[in-house]
């Protein structure tokens, strides 16, 4: 497994025996059935798994938002028992996670309160991030005046602006078009590299899972466990034109698709 002393010494995040049930008494459903994996600093993990299998539940547990029934999550060597510092989340329900009474720039700035910087510096960073996700000119609008994809990008800008060491991304690009998606993917990879961020990204897009990952974690149906971890030994930085035509890319992509196809829907 991944909980041997040597490995965890360098792991920034490690998950052991994570179990979680949700729902009220009589309808309680076992979601996570003992998840194990670890991430090294700067590693980019992608998580794939069938709809409703528990990816969001897993991310919530990693973020300290859910309390595990069994097992534990270690972040930077400390057990997670509440949202730890140095972690940002892009929630799957991005539209609800934006505060409707704050304009977009304020939604970003608001997450940066722990950042040690002057007001002007923060504003500059926030503007830079909004621009990077293609929202220049929309900073003074309210989130509900944006399209779905634009809202999702505000949420990404917010997570990036915090300069967190660990990024948890729950289908962060589900609502953007193919071209923007490719751009955002490269942006994420570039910033992750630049700031040595560790990223855990949930996606349903297998191409994305392969393109972004150093390692792909494939989850099973409920109760969820890790079926397989697939290393992606493709060189970084990656490139949409060349990487996607790399035979290794196609092989891994095929492998993941095969894996996913093997689950019957419950």
């Amino acid at each position, binding site marked *: 497994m991944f909980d041997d002393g040597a490995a965890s010494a360098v792991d920034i995040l490690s998950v052991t025996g994570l179990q979680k049930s949700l729902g009220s008494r009589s309808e309680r459903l076992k979601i996570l059935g003992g998840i194990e994996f670890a991430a090294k600093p700067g590693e980019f993990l992608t998580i794939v798994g069938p709809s409703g299998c528990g990816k969001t539940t897993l991310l919530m547990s990693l973020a300290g*938002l859910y309390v595990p029934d069994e097992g534990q999550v270690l972040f930077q060597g400390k057990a997670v028992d509440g*949202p730890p510092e140095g972690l940002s989340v892009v929630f799957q329900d991005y539209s609800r*996670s934006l*505060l409707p009474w704050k304009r977009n720039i304020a939604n970003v700035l608001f997450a940066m309160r722990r950042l040690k910087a002057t007001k002007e510096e923060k504003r500059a960073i926030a503007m830079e991030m909004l621009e990077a996700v293609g929202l220049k000119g929309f900073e003074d609008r309210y989130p509900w005046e944006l399209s779905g994809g634009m809202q999702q990008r505000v949420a990404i800008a917010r997570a990036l602006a915090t300069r967190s060491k660990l990024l948890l991304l729950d289908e962060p690009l589900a609502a953007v078009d193919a071209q923007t998606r490719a751009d955002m993917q490269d942006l994420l990879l570039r910033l992750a590299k630049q700031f040595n961020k560790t990223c855990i990204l949930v996606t349903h897009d297998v191409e994305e899972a392969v393109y972004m990952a150093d390692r792909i974690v494939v989850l099973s149906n409920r109760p969820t466990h890790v079926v397989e971890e697939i290393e992606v030994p493709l060189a970084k930085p990656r490139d949409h034109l060349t990487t996607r035509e790399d035979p290794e890319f196609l092989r891994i992509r095929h492998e993941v698709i095969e894996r996913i196809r093997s689950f019957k829907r419950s």
Partner: protein
Amino acid sequence: MDRFINGRINWPGIIFILLILVVWEVWAMIADSFYFPRASAVALTIVEDWGNLWAATLDTLRRAAIGFAIALVTMLPLGIVLGRVRVLGEIVEPVLEFFRPLPPIAVVPLAIMLLGIGDAAKLVVVVWGASFPIVINTIDAVKVQDPMQARLARSLRLTTWERMTMIDLPAALPRIFAGIKLGITVALLLTVVSEIIVSTNGLGDYLRIAQSDFSMTRVMTALIVIAIVSVIVNGATNWANRRLLDWHYRRSALAGRQ
């Protein structure tokens, strides 16, 4: 038509009120009773007795405003804390429910004994009455928060203070407004009632004297002045609410035809 209905000036409301005044005038003219003064007589009294009425109005407004302000600045934070910190809410809410139904008339004696017959005793009654709608609305509003906002707040590691001021308060404000609106009228109403019970000055005192003087016209005049004050105060409240919660109303308006 839409301009007429939803414009800045509430024409339908004004017309409706005018209509009531006309009906009143005609009805009183027909009834021709000592007990039923005409609207025009009341209007005349407002003009003639303007000095006394204005002084009384200022006294009443002063008490109501101070009482409401005290209730607001204490109950808004308290409501947020009680809504946010479950245990505290469970401990304190029954106490609120216990005190809430005690008639102000029953609170007056204790207040007088402890605070005298000056403004303090009346203020206690006003603060008492105005507090409940504000605190209860705030508690309930904070409790029904969108879970995604709660998760966001926690994942950003906001301190309890930050969470209460930056998430709970703005998110709950649209609902808290109902409590504020109630609180303002309760403050006005209880000021007048307390002036009736312990009368020294103010519109309640004016009203009480008019009653014992068997002057129906002046009783009605006092009521009409209270009504005017209420319309002005509520109008200002609604205006402030629209400005403050512009985002809320514009977002809701997306449900209409765009």
